[in-house]
């Protein structure tokens, strides 16, 4: 069963479009790697401002160096990978890779929660609290909130830079961008929060990635849509 195709004659250009064309001016087009650099700069600024404002964790010097660098490196690698997937399309395309971005966001959210629950290290200088459910929830909510605040500016900037570039897959790309910025928030918590309980690291710090991924999935389709 086949139906032959025929290219129909182009409809005439409408008045509104013709009017806009009369005022056509050159525009600077999107440069994805520059967008990655801008979002990275925004994330670094957010982290720096909050670290300076809130102070570095008190047990920083006492923590095992390998754990500190390895865990911090994982946060930064998560940010870099997800920002690349969410903002840089494959060669020859305009729309970023929405499916890998969404899959990456899911894996990052699960991975950072699992890593927090698994790879905890503590010292005599770390902050220890009574491990009740209420305490866990309260502390986790505070840290997840701080991680989300850290992520907000780079996430909004990334969404703005994507305006017009994601007619489809906006929520998927938004989840990737959100998770990337959530990983930046996780890095801030890694530098600031002296709590080392595995539930806190998993739910509070890893949870920031999940919250930001969901936030990105909601915000990016709205902020990046073509007006």
């Amino acid at each position: 069963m086949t139906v032959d195709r025929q290219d129909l004659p182009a409809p005439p250009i409408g008045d509104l479009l013709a009017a806009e064309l009369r005022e056509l001016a050159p525009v600077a087009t999107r440069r994805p790697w520059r967008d990655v650099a801008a979002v990275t700069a925004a994330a670094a600024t957010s982290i720096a401002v909050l670290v300076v404002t809130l102070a570095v964790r008190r047990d920083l010097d006492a923590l095992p160096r390998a754990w500190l660098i390895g865990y911090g490196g994982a946060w930064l690698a998560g940010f870099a990978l997800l920002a690349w997937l969410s903002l840089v399309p494959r060669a020859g395309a305009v729309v970023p890779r929405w499916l890998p971005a969404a899959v990456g966001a899911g894996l990052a959210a699960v991975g950072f929660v699992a890593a927090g629950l698994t790879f905890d290290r503590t010292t005599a200088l770390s902050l220890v609290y009574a491990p009740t459910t209420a305490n866990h929830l309260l502390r986790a909510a505070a840290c997840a909130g701080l991680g989300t605040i850290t992520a907000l500016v780079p996430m909004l900037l990334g969404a703005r830079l994507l305006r017009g570039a994601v007619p489809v897959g906006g929520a998927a790309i938004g989840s990737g961008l959100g998770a990337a910025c959530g990983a930046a928030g996780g890095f801030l918590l890694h530098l600031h929060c002296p709590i080392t309980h595995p539930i806190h690291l998993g739910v509070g710090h890893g949870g920031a990635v999940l919250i930001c991924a969901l936030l990105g999935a909601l915000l990016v389709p709205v902020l990046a849509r073509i007006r």
Partner: protein
Amino acid sequence: MSGGGPADESGTDAELMRRYVGGEAEAFRQLYARLAPRLLGYLLRMVRDRAAAEDLVQVTFLKVHRARAAYVRGADPGPWIFAIAHRSFLDDVRGKRRARVGLADDGEPPEVSADITGATDGVRAAADDQRELTQATLAALQTLPPMQREAVALTKLGGKSIAEAAEIAGTTPGAMKVRVHRGYEALRKALGAAAATEEST
């Protein structure tokens, strides 16, 4: 559609887009002349109504114009522009809250006007039964759910690959393959049922 679209004396779609974002209105007109017929064909199969499809072509190009800063130099603009058309169609459907199930108020499949059959001159000159089959196919197409209709329109009628159609519709190639298969099977059944009804009468 890779490689920046078709090339002729005016250059590839990517080259036209580069000149257009550089401020050349003539490059836009050439790009429009090249892409608007393909978009119109795609949208006609989705909305059934020529005026509505032409409106959506205008809306699509207006959006392309307003979002041209989002273009990445060197990229093929085709899939992006088709994806904008796809989004415009969805917004139109949601905005007007119209159920496009393909049946007229009297419950009959809609008549398909000759200019949306996609038939070439050769086909028009061919036997009546071939024309009837084409019309029956397109009428049956309108009875499919929108996503299956779009999948069939993009691939079987629009000549796009599964990967290209998936990119335009914002879905995975696997999901697109399933939609095409289901749509194709539904079309086959619909045409088979129509033929059986015709034979019994």
